[in-house]
């Protein structure tokens, strides 16, 4: 895929900025994370690192808290009244739950795609993709041409060819798989470093699923991808690292059992619980 280089809005150059000391961009480190709704913990004591350039899959039986963990990575968990978090989530060295950190800003770095595709119904395809930029802080719009951003994002999401002639049509008029790719494009348009995907294919047909899985494979070169899935085969197909979560008993908070390279986890898991889940004994 040929992509246009995004211009740096400050210096105007197209050179990608580099951090001193290497290319580590978009690394998430979760330390001792506990998330609760109105005092009742949903997940406890999670320790996990998600590396850039890799796809990390979160698997586990329903109710194990994998979606909750995902939502803790961009602070969306706290939107529910009464929700609380302890522990830290470091995004390239900055704890997003620090007092001084603005979670709205965090979400410019961490994009999210949801289980059911949810394009904004009153907006066209183009407006949907541009929504994050149009409704975001002015400073990020400077120097960017909306139609370039729209094209680039739709190309990255693999949707450009299908919609390039009807960018003005309503976003809701697309098929399920196309809508989900539209949502992916919308997230990519704000140029996050990390992309979170909460069971992105569970509401889609197999063909669309395959397309999106292929997309994930391409996206991981530029983004850190974390995907929650209840489909083990999907995890085996798309991810580099897999983390298995479970609950000790119904109603208990979810816990991270183990995380390892996907190949390893599925062939020789370290924990019995993982083995049970994979072989279908539980879940």
């Amino acid at each position: 895929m040929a992509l246009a280089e995004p211009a740096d809005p400050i210096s105007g150059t197209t050179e990608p900025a580099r951090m001193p000391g290497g290319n580590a961009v978009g690394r998430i480190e979760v330390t001792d994370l506990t998330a609760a709704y109105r005092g009742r913990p949903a997940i406890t004591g999670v320790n996990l690192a998600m590396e850039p350039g890799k796809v990390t899959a979160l698997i586990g039986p329903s109710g194990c808290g994998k979606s909750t963990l995902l939502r803790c990575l961009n602070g969306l968990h706290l939107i529910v009244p009464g929700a609380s978090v302890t522990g830290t989530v470091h995004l390239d060295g900055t704890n997003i739950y620090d007092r001084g950190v603005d979670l709205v800003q965090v979400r410019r770095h961490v994009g999210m795609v949801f289980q059911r595709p949810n394009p904004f119904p009153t907006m066209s395809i183009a407006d949907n993709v541009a929504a994050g930029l149009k409704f975001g802080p002015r400073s990020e719009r400077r120097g960017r041409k909306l139609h370039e951003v729209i094209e680039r994002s739709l190309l990255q999401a693999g949707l450009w060819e299908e919609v390039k002639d009807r960018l003005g049509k309503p976003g809701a008029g697309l098929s399920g798989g196309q809508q989900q790719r539209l949502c992916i494009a919308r997230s990519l348009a704000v140029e996050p470093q990390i992309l979170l995907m909460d069971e992105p294919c569970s509401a889609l047909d197999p063909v669309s699923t395959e397309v999106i899985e292929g997309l994930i494979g391409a996206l991981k070169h530029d983004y850190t991808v974390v995907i929650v899935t209840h489909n083990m085969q999907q995890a085996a197909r798309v991810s580099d690292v897999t983390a298995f979560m479970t609950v000790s008993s119904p109603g208990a908070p979810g816990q991270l059992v183990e995380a390892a390279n996907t190949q390893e986890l599925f062939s020789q898991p370290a924990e019995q619980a993982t083995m049970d889940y994979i072989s279908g004994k539980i879940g």
Partner: protein
Amino acid sequence: MTARPASPGAGNGRVLLQRRRRYGDTVFRAAMLTAAGLVVVVLAAMAVFLVTQSLPALRHYGPLSFLGSDRWAPSDATPAGTSPNPYGIVQFIYGTVLTSVIGLLIAVPMSVGIGLFITGIAPAWLRRPLSYVVDLLAAIPSVVFGFWGIFALIPALQPVVSFLTGTLGKIPVIGGVFAGPFFGLSYFTAGIILAIMVLPIVTALCREIFATTPADEKEAALALGMTRWEMLRTAVLPRSRAGIIGASILGLGRAFGETIAVTMVIGNNVLSITKSIFSTGATMASVIANEFTEATEPFHLDSLFVVAMWLLIISLIVNVAGKLAVRRIRGDLA
């Protein structure tokens, strides 16, 4: 050549560490909450202003004296005289309650019947149009109902009422309530118009309430061999009792507040309570509407504010009671 998006703190203009003072969010939130506060203030102000305007009369005659007399004779009022209170409001309360009760006695059974018909008997294709038609009654403005009441309803009522005064009016003891003569404008006429105006809302509520009867309870009744009417009577009605009462209370509240249609057909006899429902009378709303702009006597306007204050109080009580009763069945803004 693909380029990686720049990282936080790497000079792309996004800095994670600063807590951005979100002025926009704070201002917006404050504005929205101010609007909500305005709603509260409005009701409070209403109460305050009504009481303030009533105060001179309340102080001059004493608050309870208004409720102790049914004689409203502004021409008797003098700046100094304090007793007896020429502004007795009891007949207005009587008029408001009587006309509303007559209205409900007619409207509630009809609404229940219509509700049962729409939810239980009418074929599916007929339900929406029927509901729509009944709702249409609510769209007709009050002044139109009053106008129609004078020229269309009253002539049609004449023969009916003559019959009633001739029969019921002759019964000893209670005959006085139904005594003639009937000149058209009366509590009874106002009651009928209120029935028509209150019917849509009570019917709509009954419809909702009946529709919440679980289908399997209805099917169980039918499976036992009950006829459709028996099913409605045993499976739908009993569990809806609380809801019907709630709907009736709300209808009562609506009837209390109705002004123009009642004013046009009740005759505006403000002097005192008249015994027969076929005679002229007045309600709290109608006396305010009639006399407000010509209230020149001492304490006249202030006393009308006393009426308004009491009207507000009883309307609020009835409406809140009705809301609480119905809210358990359908959530409003809860």
